[in-house]
């Protein structure tokens, strides 16, 4: 009887933990998006301030280190710790500046969440959602990992296209004929170009 009681208790405990985790990954993404909408996209502050705030959210909510490592695939093992740091910084800077270029595109799109599915790897799930854009539902899947009680995004899959996989294919192809220093320089150039585009757009609006 005692055994059965312990079994039932264990079952309920695990179910509870599983449900709590399941809810938390979705809640985490939902809260992050709401925070970015409220405090970055719809607030009346300068573009520089918006980019700064966005960077703070991304630094906390996205596992840039893990993504950078996945993106470089076999090349990650061949580069020095300093090159790793430089690459992570340049990659993060490029991603933030590129996204900042698109802040103006937000005009009230809604995100709806549906389900969670397990992903390959420890404590990883896919959070399924749709974003309504131009009266069409676009499928967006968030790959989230829970580590030491903290959730972080590893990948965003838009209509079946994985951002991480896209960068991986592009960068590993580039590294077949170039060095990591070339790649870092290219990423810096991309970040600068994105910043220039933001400045140009601002100038055009003023005129």
């Amino acid at each position, binding site marked *: 009887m005692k055994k059965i009681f312990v079994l039932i208790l264990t079952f309920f405990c695990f179910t509870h933990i599983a449900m709590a985790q399941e809810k938390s990954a979705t809640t985490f993404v939902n809260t992050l998006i709401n925070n970015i909408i409220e405090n970055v996209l719809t607030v009346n502050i300068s573009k520089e301030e918006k980019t700064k705030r966005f960077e703070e959210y991304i630094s906390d909510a996205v596992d840039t280190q893990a993504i950078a*490592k*996945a993106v470089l695939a076999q090349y990650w093992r061949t580069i020095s710790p300093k090159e790793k740091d430089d690459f992570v910084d340049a990659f993060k800077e490029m991603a933030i500046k590129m996204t900042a270029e698109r802040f103006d595109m937000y005009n009230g799109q809604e995100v709806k969440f549906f389900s969670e599915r397990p992903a390959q790897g420890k404590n990883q799930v896919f959070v399924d959602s749709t974003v309504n854009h131009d009266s069409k539902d676009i499928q967006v899947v968030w790959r989230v990992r829970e580590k030491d009680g903290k959730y972080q995004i590893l990948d965003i899959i838009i209509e079946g*296209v994985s951002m991480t996989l*896209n960068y991986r294919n592009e960068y590993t*192809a580039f590294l077949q004929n170039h060095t990591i220093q070339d790649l870092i320089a290219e*990423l810096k150039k*991309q970040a600068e*170009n994105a910043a220039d585009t933001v400045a140009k757009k601002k100038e055009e609006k003023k005129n």
Partner: protein
Amino acid sequence: MVIIKKLRHLFFCFIGCLLLAACATPPTDPIALEQFNANNDPFEPYNRVATDFNFKVNRYIYRPFDEAYRFVTPEPVRNCISNASSNISQPYYFVNAVLQGELEESAQIFGRFFTNSTLGVFGLFDVAGALDIEAPQKDFGETLYKWGWKQPTPYFVIPFLGPSDIRDTTGRVVGFFVDPLDYVFPRPERRYLLIFRYITMGIVTVDNLSELLENIEKNSIDPYIALRTMYRQSRAKFLNAKDIDAQTENYNFDFDDEEEF
């Protein structure tokens, strides 16, 4: 007609010669060979030239056209053109749904076509969408996939049209001959309908994709690889629209947790 036939033959001969000349030689190094096989892109030299050409077409023709189109047409007009284009493609989707044995989907497509062609004034208004009658898009490339041509085929870029692969290019070519518009209507009308279908399809495709293409060109270190990866992933999702596990396989790669940074 004779001239068109001759031009067709010439075109196929030209593409054939181009492909033979443009095949990449497989490398001898085992690691490079593994990568070469994984890429499944033996026509890469040709594909790169065709992609560069398509980016130029996009920059100098499609983008200016789309900007002018958006400037002269208000959003409701653009929606009507998009609805009409979608509606006139439904018979083609219907035939492919039947060929794929998807009876439920073929009924949905028929329902959508019937509703929009009548209540939606020849497809100008998406009444079916407002009534939640949704239907999937179907093409002959997908039909070939459902019939058992499952293995991935080499990447192939079509000038002016963009990324594809051998199976889907075959599907496009055969697709010309399975469009019911070409059989149901008498001669002059069917020609006008087909011309209308391809023109509106071209306008809508350019409107939907030209800006994305411009962004890919501007924001990628290697736009060719970026486009190839995007095409393959989105096509895999399309081909497995109802199979979420098969879709997931395409992006559920290992993040390699165990290894230390």
